[in-house]
C-alpha cells in the first residue's frame, strides 16, 4: 500500500514535469497552425525550421559564443583557482566571496549591471559584449569546481615531481593539471551549458544583429502563432535526452564496476 502510493506520487510529479513538453512535441507534428486543434500529421514545421535563417544564424551565434566564452573562462578560471589556492586566508576569502556574487545575484541584476558597464565604456552591444558577459558568469563555476580538487590534492606531489627532476613548468603541466583535470572538465561543461542556455543576461547585453538562440526563441514566443518553436523544442529535447542517456549509462556502469550498487 505504502509502495503503491509512493509510486503514484512519483508518477504524478513526473507527469507534471513532462506533460507540457510532450504537448509541445505532439504539436510539432500538427498540420494546423493553431496550438489546440489537431488537423493532421505533418513534417512541415521541421522543414520550415531548417529553412529559417534567423534561427540557424542564432544557433551558430549561440555555439560560437558558448565555445569561445567557455574556453576563455576555463583557462582564466583554472589559473585563478591555482592562484587563489596559494593566497593568504584573508585575501582568499575576500576574493572567493566576490567570485560568488554573479552566482547568488539575481540574473537580471547581473545583466543590467553589465549593460550599464558597456554603455558607460561606450562599447557597442554585440557579439563582443555577449562573449564578455558570458565569460563573466562562467568563470565562477570553473573556479568553484577546480578549488576543491586543489584542496583534495596531496600538497607534496609538486615537491616530489621537482625532486624527481621536473622543472616547475613540467611539474605544473604533468602533475598538477592532471590531478585537477576532473574539476576543470566539470567547470568547462557547466560553462558551456550555462552559456548555451542563458537568456536573461544575454537579453541585456546583446545587440540587434547578435541574437542567440534563446533570444530568438523569446521573440518567436511573443508572436501569437509560431509552430516552429514546437519543432525546435522537440529537437532540443531529443538531443538532450540522448546526451544525458549516454552520460548516465556510462556513470552507472562505472558505479557498478566500483561496486556501489
Amino acid at each position: 500500500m505504502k509502495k503503491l502510493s509512493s509510486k503514484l506520487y512519483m508518477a504524478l510529479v513526473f507527469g507534471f514535469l513532462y506533460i507540457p513538453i510532450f504537448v509541445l512535441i505532439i504539436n510539432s507534428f500538427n498540420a494546423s497552425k493553431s496550438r489546440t486543434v489537431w488537423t493532421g500529421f505533418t513534417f512541415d514545421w521541421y522543414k520550415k525550421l531548417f529553412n529559417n535563417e534567423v534561427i540557424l544564424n542564432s544557433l551558430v551565434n549561440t555555439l560560437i559564443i558558448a565555445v569561445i566564452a567557455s574556453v576563455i573562462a576555463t583557462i582564466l578560471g583554472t589559473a585563478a583557482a591555482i592562484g587563489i589556492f596559494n593566497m593568504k586566508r584573508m585575501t582568499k576569502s575576500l576574493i572567493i566571496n566576490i567570485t560568488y556574487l554573479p552566482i547568488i545575484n539575481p540574473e537580471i541584476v547581473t545583466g543590467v549591471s553589465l549593460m550599464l558597464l558597456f554603455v558607460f565604456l561606450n562599447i557597442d552591444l554585440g557579439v563582443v559584449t555577449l562573449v564578455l558577459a558570458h565569460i563573466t558568469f562562467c568563470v565562477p563555476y570553473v573556479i568553484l569546481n577546480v578549488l576543491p580538487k586543489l584542496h583534495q590534492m596531496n600538497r607534496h606531489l609538486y615537491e616530489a615531481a621537482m625532486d624527481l627532476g621536473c622543472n616547475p613548468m613540467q611539474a605544473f603541466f604533468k602533475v598538477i593539471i592532471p590531478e585537477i583535470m576532473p574539476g576543470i572538465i566539470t567547470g568547462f561543461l557547466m560553462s558551456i551549458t550555462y552559456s548555451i542556455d542563458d537568456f536573461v543576461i544575454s537579453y541585456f547585453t546583446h545587440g540587434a544583429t547578435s541574437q542567440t538562440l534563446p533570444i530568438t526563441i523569446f521573440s518567436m514566443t511573443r508572436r501569437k502563432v509560431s509552430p516552429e518553436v514546437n519543432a525546435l523544442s522537440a529537437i532540443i529535447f531529443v538531443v538532450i535526452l540522448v546526451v544525458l542517456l549516454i552520460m548516465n549509462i556510462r556513470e552507472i556502469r562505472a558505479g557498478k564496476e566500483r561496486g556501489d550498487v
Partner: protein
Amino acid sequence: MTSKSKFLAAPYLLWMIIFIVIPLALIVVFAFTTTVYTDLEGNLLSNEEFDELRIEYDNFYDMADNELPYKKQTVFTLTHIMEVSNYVPVLLNSVWLAIIATAICLLIGYPLAYLISRMRYGFQKLMLMMVMLPMWMNFLLRTYAWMTLLERNGWINKLLGLVGIGPFDMINTQGAVVLGMVYNYLPYMILPLYSIMTKIDNRTIEAAQDLGANSLRVFSKVVLPLSMPGVASGITMVFVPSVSTFIISRMLGGGTNMLIGDLIDLQFLGNAYNPNLGSAISLVLLVFILLCMSITNQLNNEDNMDGGMLL
C-alpha cells in the same frame, strides 16, 4: 606549489574588478545620481527651458561650428531611491508570489527527493536524470508549453470541457505565474534536497524505528533535522530566481501582473526608459536578496549548533 603561483590569479583579479565590482558599483552610482542640464553659466535649467534650448540649437545652428548652449551634469540625488516606494505593491506582490511558489516546490519536492534517495543506486541515477532533463530545456520553451496548455481554448480547458466543466480563465492570472515558477524551478528544489538526503544512512532511520519511534517521529526527529541544509539551499535556489523573474510573468501573467523584474526591464529596455530608477530598483532587490540569504544561512548554522550541543 610556490607562493609565486598566486600571480596566476592576476588576470582573473583584473577581470573580476572590471566585470563584477565596477558594474555593481555603477548600479549604486546610477541609483544615487541623476542627470541635469545647466546653461553655460551653471544655472539649473527646467525641463521646458532645456527643451527650448535644445530645439533652438538643433534648428538654427550648424552642428559642427557651435558649442552646445547647455551642459550635462550628474548630481547626487535620493529621488530615485524614494521613488522606489511608489512601487512597494509590486515588490510585495513579487515577494508574495515567490514565497508561495517556493512553499509549493518544497511541498512537492521534499517527498520526491526522499523517495529517490531511498532507491537502488541505478534507479537513483535514472530518476535524477528525469528530474534534470526538463531543466536542460530552455525555460522559455518550458514556459511556452504552459501557454499552450492554459489558454482559454487550450488543452486543459478542452479536457475539462469533455467532463462538462469550464472553460476557466487560467492564463494571465497570478495562479498561472506561480504555476510557471513552480514548474521551472522545481528541479532546483529537488536536487539539493536529494544530495543531502542520499547521505542519510538507512541505519539511522532503522535505529530510530527500533528505539520505538513511529513514522512521524522518525521524520521530525531524524530525517527533517538531517536534511535541513538541503532545505535551506533549495529554498534559496527557488526563491531568488522566482522573485526576480520577468519572463514568466510576461508570458503567463499577460503583462498585467507586474513583478520587480518587469519593472527593472521596463526602465532599461522598455518604454519607461530610466536607468537611474532601474538601478535604484535593482539595488533594492539586491539588498533584499542578500538579507534573505543571510537569514537562511543563519537558520542553517543554528540548526547545526543545536545538533552539536545535543551530541
